[in-house]
């Protein structure tokens, strides 16, 4: 359980996290979604007590992180796969963390087995690939058998098999009743992994709730119809107060109603249909629509003007 109350972080006059409040419930996987620079990592660092909130508060399992007597037992975190000294072996890294909580060597071996690091555990971390670094970070997060897991971009740099593994791992952990909070800027990954979504943009919560609900709240659904009698059908639907657009001849985009209703209207008017397909927005579309105003760094792909090119020479 993670509870944030009007959590705010300002760096100088830049507000990274702007008075956000949320509750992350145990027993499910909550995805923390947002573009780069939206405030995901800053929020997670405040949860972990690494950064001090400018105002507001956040608790994990009922207490601020720093007030737990044995914090690794409460919370396991992967905040940054690079939070490791490259000159140390993977096993030594885990041993240094395990030692602080008197965690047995057998548990260190367990998390090494679990994360598939057994073959590289004596190698120095500096030579690890990004994917192995992620696995080591996840191993460290699991060390204390924590009730709450916080994973910042856990699938970054993992191969497809690794991505699959993380997905199954977090689902299994949530199924055991743990709180799992993971961030990503990859909406497709969230669609397959998370039960709940917390969407953040420019330091503010844009949307929160079950994954499908968040998607529906943005798209509102829609129906695509192809018919040789498109014009008549459009008129019949418009009479029912349904919004209809004609993107091309013979095709209708209907919103604000169901496919069943469109079918019934066509039937009662004796109109032939070639296609009747309900369209649910993908998480990707929902995400783009949610965050288009909240993207911190837009990419500008517009062609350069002649004068600019001239100046560059």
């Amino acid at each position, binding site marked *: 359980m993670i509870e944030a109350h009007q959590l705010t972080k300002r760096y100088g006059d830049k507000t990274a996290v702007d008075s956000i409040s949320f509750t992350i419930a145990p027993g499910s996987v909550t995805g923390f979604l947002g573009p780069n620079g939206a405030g995901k990592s800053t929020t997670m660092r405040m949860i*972990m*007590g690494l950064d001090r909130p400018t105002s507001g508060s956040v608790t994990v399992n009922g207490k601020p992180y720093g007030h737990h007597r044995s914090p690794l037992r409460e919370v396991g975190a992967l905040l940054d796969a690079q939070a490791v000294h490259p*000159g140390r072996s993977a096993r030594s890294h885990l041993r240094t963390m395990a*030692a602080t*909580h*008197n965690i047995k060597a057998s548990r260190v071996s367990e998390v090494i087995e679990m994360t598939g690091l057994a073959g590289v555990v004596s190698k120095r971390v500096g030579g690890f690939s990004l994917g192995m670094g992620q696995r080591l970070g996840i191993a460290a997060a699991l060390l204390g058998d924590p009730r709450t897991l916080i994973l910042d971009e856990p699938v970054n740099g993992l191969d497809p098999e690794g991505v699959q593994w993380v997905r199954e791992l977090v689902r299994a952990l949530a199924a055991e009743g743990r709180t799992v909070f993971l961030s990503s800027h990859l909406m497709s990954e969230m669609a397959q992994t998370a039960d709940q979504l917390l969407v953040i943009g420019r330091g503010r919560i844009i949307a929160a709730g079950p994954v499908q609900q968040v998607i529906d709240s943005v798209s509102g659904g829609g129906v695509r119809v192809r018919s040789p009698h498109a014009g008549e059908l459009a008129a019949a639907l418009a009479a029912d107060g349904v919004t209809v657009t004609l993107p091309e001849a013979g095709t209708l985009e209907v919103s604000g109603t169901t496919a069943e209703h469109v079918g019934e209207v066509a039937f009662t008017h004796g109109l032939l249909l070639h296609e009747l397909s309900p369209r649910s927005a993908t998480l990707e579309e929902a995400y783009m629509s949610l965050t288009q105003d909240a993207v911190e760094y837009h990419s500008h792909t517009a062609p350069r003007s002649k004068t600019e090119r001239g100046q560059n020479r």
Partner: protein
Amino acid sequence: MSTLTADPTTTTRAATSPSTAEVNSTFAGVMRGEWIKLLSLRSTWWALASAAALMTLVSLAAAMSLNAMADDPVTAPGIEQVHGAEIVASGFPFGMLIIAVMGALFMTGEYSTGMIRSTFAAVPTRLPVLAAKALTLVVLTAAVTVVSVTLSYLVTMAQLSRYDLVPALDDPGTWRVLGGSVYCLTAAALFSLGLGTLLRSTAATVTVALTVLLLLPGTLSFVTLDWVQTIVSYLPLPASSTLLTTGTTDVPGADLSTHASLVVVAAYAVVPIVAAAVALRRRDA
């Protein structure tokens, strides 16, 4: 890829295994964690080995140079003023150089690599980390100094015996100099650790630490203003010099009494550590 494959079903079972039944954060645990951290880096072993080697070799060189001193009629009478322990401990500045760098890296290495986030995730109250690092460093510095001094004593013995200068183990002067070495090197290590916690950057910390510890007394000795010389006498190396001699030889710049030197050297350790503790509590990691 088979080595990196993990079965999620075993994961779940293992995650609730009884081996995590007794998980408790204690200061002894934090100490052990810091101990593993320091000893699991190759650079630590290189630093310790080179500190011991350099201090031993320099003491041997100092002992050999007694020959030249004895051959010159001008300097020959000076040999009687020399205490054998001063020769044994003469590698001190080289030890200081390496120990100071090691002390700095112990903390700045955490910041430069990002390890500090893992460290503070495990110990969010932070101060136990600083305390454990300080204690670990004190133990290791004292140990390497004792080893170096012992080695120096052994390798200089033959040469010193020619001049009847082998430091007597029942002579308080001997223990003053050898104890002073341990005391001052430990202080230098803590000075760097505190400075490293405040500055976080390895380059900045090493530069400032070595300037204050080793460079300033030499460069400022050319400035013959009284007030500058007073400042110089309070710098770590001149203040340590008082503790590293038996008082019969005159060390330039070392004008403090024994008690004042003990206090000044301790201040170089305590003040940065206290400032570091305050900063550590307040700042974002």
